[in-house]
Structures are given as structure tokens and as C-alpha cells.
């Protein structure tokens, strides 16, 4: 834990200095997205990297968080923190419904079930026009305020978001460094082994799903209040796949990998924009090269320095 804390202080110190050095609201905005995606991947890596499950429906929980707090604050005038809590509650409930039948599924079948969940959410966002605004979405979502401080600039939202990334990182780290984390990591082996040692494998699988859904939903609520506008096109299967890619590129089963992967795949499209026609080609080549030469992700470049729970 000590070692990780040192890394954390350095990393977050640099992040928090960023807006003071680079004053461009555009880049600060990109970093906000990095923060939001990081919250999702810090949860998802518990599910995929440690518990050895898969989810191709994480955009669904992101959407539930975003729309629940968006709708409740905009249409019903509820305070944002209530909207966020409602989103978290709904996401936990839905992930429970998704996780229980998924206990019997493995590999491809689990991937398909979670993918189906994401698609159902997407369909509902499009079709339930009266509530979600349908394909064209809805706007004018109120900004958040925090301790009387209105978060309506890129800069203020940046600090708010990264403050949460820091906390969520600490929570995931504490989880992994506890008996719960050990049990989650034991799920990587064939099920018969943890079962024979008294580990309630079913509980931990559901737990990992809930954990990942909680993070994604919270990130969704942040997203809603940052964008102040929501439409279904931001919550597609492509996003679910992108989130999985972030974890894999960064390094499966490593919290730093989740953070790093989210950063790289958030920044890469922004950087590649200057290459216009070649953008996708370079992006694809990058992914393939990482998978071939660094199958354990970018964190394997500095093994030893980044051992987080394994």
C-alpha cells in the first residue's frame, strides 16, 4: 500500500498541476473525459482483470447513471446528488438482474449476455421518447455545485472529476488489498478450486458486477452534468468495446493500467485528428502493435514499479 500511495501522490500531483500549466480549455476538457473514462475502467478492471469475467455492456450502466441524474435534475428539479444516488441505485439493481443469470455463463456467452444488456439500454433510450427525448436527446442539464462552488467551467469540473478519480482509485486499491480482493483474484482459476476452499464464488462474481456497474454509473452522472446534454449516440456498443480496449491496452488486472489505457485511448483520437484520412489506420495499427508486443498492456513496460495487487 505504501509504495502505491507514493505513486499515487506523484501521478495525481502532476494531473492537478496540468490546468495551471496548460490553460487551454480544450485540453482541460479532454482531461475531464480521461477522468470520466478512468472511473469506469477502474471499476471494470476489477470485474475483468481480477474476477476474470467480461462485460460488453458497460456503456449501458454509464447511460443509466447519465440519464437518471440528467432526467431527475432537469425534469423533476431534484438536487444533483439525489440524481446521482438514484442512478447508482438503479444501476446496482440492474446489474444484480444481469449478474444473477450470468453466474451460469462463461466466456463468449457471458460476453453476449452483457452485450445484450447494453443494447437493450440503447434501445430504451431511443424508444422511450417521452422520458429520454428519444434519438435527439435532451439538454439544459443543470451544472453541479460542490460546497457552494458552481462547477460550470472546464477548470472547476476538471478538479471535481479528478478528485473523484483519486477516491475511486483508492477504493479499488483498498478492495484489492483486502480479503475481498484476494477472493476476487482467486476467481481467475478454475471455479472448482476456490469453491473447494470455501470461497463463495457466486457471491464474488455478483459483487464484481455490482462494483463495476457502480463506477460506470457514477461516471455517467458526472458526464451528464459536464456535457449538460445527452443523446443515445454517446452510449453505443462502440463505447463498451472502447472501455474494454482501454483496460486491455493499459494492462489487465492492474489499476494503473486502467488509468493509463483510458488516457491513451482518450488522447489518441485527438492527436490523430491531424492525420485525417490515416486516423483509423494509425489507431488500428497502434492497437495491433500493443497486442503483439505488449500482450500484458502498457504497464508491463514498467513492471515492478506498478505492481498493484499482483
Amino acid at each position: 500500500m505504501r509504495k502505491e500511495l507514493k505513486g499515487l501522490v506523484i501521478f495525481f500531483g502532476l494531473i492537478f498541476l496540468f490546468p495551471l500549466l496548460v490553460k487551454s480549455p480544450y485540453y482541460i476538457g479532454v482531461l475531464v473525459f480521461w477522468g470520466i473514462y478512468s472511473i469506469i475502467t477502474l471499476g471494470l478492471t476489477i470485474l475483468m482483470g481480477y474476477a476474470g469475467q467480461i462485460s460488453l455492456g458497460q456503456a449501458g450502466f454509464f447511460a443509466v447513471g447519465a440519464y437518471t441524474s440528467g432526467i431527475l435534475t432537469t425534469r423533476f428539479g431534484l438536487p444533483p446528488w439525489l440524481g446521482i444516488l438514484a442512478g447508482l441505485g438503479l444501476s446496482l439493481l440492474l446489474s444484480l438482474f444481469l449478474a444473477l443469470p450470468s453466474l451460469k455463463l462463461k466466456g463468449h456467452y457471458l460476453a453476449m449476455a452483457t452485450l445484450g444488456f447494453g443494447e437493450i439500454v440503447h434501445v430504451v433510450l431511443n424508444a422511450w421518447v417521452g422520458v429520454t427525448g428519444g434519438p435527439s436527446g435532451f439538454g439544459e442539464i443543470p451544472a453541479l455545485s460542490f460546497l457552494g462552488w458552481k462547477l460550470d467551467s472546464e477548470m472547476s469540473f476538471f478538479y471535481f472529476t479528478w478528485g473523484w478519480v483519486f477516491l475511486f482509485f483508492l477504493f479499488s486499491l483498498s478492495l484489492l488489498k483486502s480479503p475481498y480482493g484476494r477472493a476476487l483474484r482467486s476467481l481467475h482459476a478454475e471455479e472448482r478450486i476456490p469453491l473447494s476452499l470455501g470461497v463463495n464464488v457466486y457471491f464474488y462474481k455478483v459483487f464484481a458486477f455490482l462494483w463495476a456497474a457502480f463506477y460506470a454509473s457514477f461516471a455517467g452522472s458526472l458526464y451528464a452534468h459536464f456535457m449538460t446534454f445527452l443523446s443515445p449516440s454517446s452510449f453505443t456498443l462502440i463505447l463498451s468495446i472502447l472501455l474494454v480496449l482501454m483496460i486491455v491496452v493499459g494492462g489487465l488486472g492492474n489499476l494503473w493500467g486502467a488509468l493509463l489505457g483510458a488516457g491513451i485511448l482518450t488522447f489518441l483520437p485527438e492527436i490523430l485528428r491531424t492525420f485525417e484520412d490515416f486516423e483509423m489506420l494509425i489507431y488500428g495499427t497502434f492497437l495491433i502493435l500493443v497486442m503483439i508486443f505488449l500482450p500484458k498492456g502498457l504497464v508491463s513496460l514498467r513492471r515492478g514499479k506498478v505492481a498493484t495487487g499482483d
Partner: protein
Amino acid sequence: MLLETKNLTRYFGGVKAVDGVDIEVKEGTIKGIIGPNGAGKTTFFHLLSGHLPPQKGWIKFKGEIINHLPPFERARKGIGRVFQQPSPFENLTLMENILISLDISNSPSLFTSLLRLPSLGKSEKEKEKQAIEILHFLNLEKKLHHFPSSLTHFERRKMEIGRVLALNPSLLLLDEPTAGLSYREKEEIKEIIWELKEKGLTILVVEHDMELITDICEEVVVLNFGKKIAEGSPWEIKNNPLVKEVYLGEEYASGS
């Protein structure tokens, strides 16, 4: 009786892997299970540990029918099983492999864990101490922070025994604990089993090594094609004509 089975039966399609087996295991004893390859010994263990449901019959442990219990609850009740094939947690260190089972009986709440309250550190320390004791007993304390991939086959075998001991079981199921080990390593396993018996553990052991069985077991059960064909002291079993025929038949078949 600590363990009792009645008419325990498991088919795989047409194969009668375990066919109406009755056994009784008295507290504090070591019982051996022998039989040719494919006789149903491992399947019998699967039924006891709950990794497979039986089609017929019942299992009584500590006087209670446990047929309906999932494996993790049987483990918590005191049935500790070591598998025939190596089954380490590759992504956990030797120490953590042992801690996994210590966590079962001594784990702070999620709240305590996430906020890292002082009681978390206290229980972790306690468990680490217990884990080191177990590893010391198994002569493994030097490799505390090694991953299973850097251990020898023998060390991994012992680690798996240690992991199960950390559950503090009353019944130990060992499936060929000395397979693939050298003579000296076998002797060490034998010592371990003796010491465990002295501590009051009840042990059910599957083995092909007749010498080991003779040395450690009070009683032996012989399975063939899923059926119990003989039961008695090692001496009686060695001189049982039916058992001789089964084993001679096998030797004859594999020798030709």
C-alpha cells in the same frame, strides 16, 4: 461416524463411475481408497466435496445429510479436499494462496476493508501469522512470496495441502498426494500425514502406492468399475483373491 455414504451412485452416460458405494469413516482414522485407473476414486471425491451431484444415495457428515450443500459450504463445514491434478492460484503468492482459506473464518466487513480501519490490519496480521505457522509445518516458509510457477512440483503439492489445512478441516480428502514425487519426497508427505493424524484429523486418501497405503492406513476400500469390491485392513486387502485378480489383470493388460 464422521463420514458416511450410502448407495452413492454417479453415472456418466452409460459409464457407472461410482456405483452404490457405502463407506463409513471413523473420527481420527485414516482410510485408503485404491483401485485401478478409472475405477471411480476421483469421482467419489467429487461427490463428497460437492463438485458433482450424485444420482442416487446420500452423504452424511457429522451426522447431517449434506447432499444439497454446494462445495464451498462443505468446505466451511470441514471437508478439505486436495485435487489430483495441480490446482494452485497462479496469480497469488504462496502466502496469499494460504490466506485465501484463512479469510473464510476471519474476514472483516467490506466497510472496514475499504476504509482500511485498524481492525483490518489486525486480522491480516493474525492470518499472516497462522499462514506462516502452516508453511513452517510444511517446510515452505522460505518461499513465502514466491508465485506457484516458481515452485517445484513437490512444493506446489505441499502448498495445496497447506491451503486446505488453513480451512481447519475435520476431514481431509487427499487424491494421490504422492503421485510423481521422489522417494524422499514421498517420505516427507508420509510424515506430514502422520502428524496430521496425531493432531486429530480424519483422512481419506486415494493412492496407487500400496506401500504408502500399508504404512498409513488402518483400513482400505477397493473400488473397481465404480463398485466397492473389498474392504479391510491393508493386510487383508493384500491377501484378498478378488483384489489380486483385479490388480494382476491390470498388470497383465498393461504388460502385454
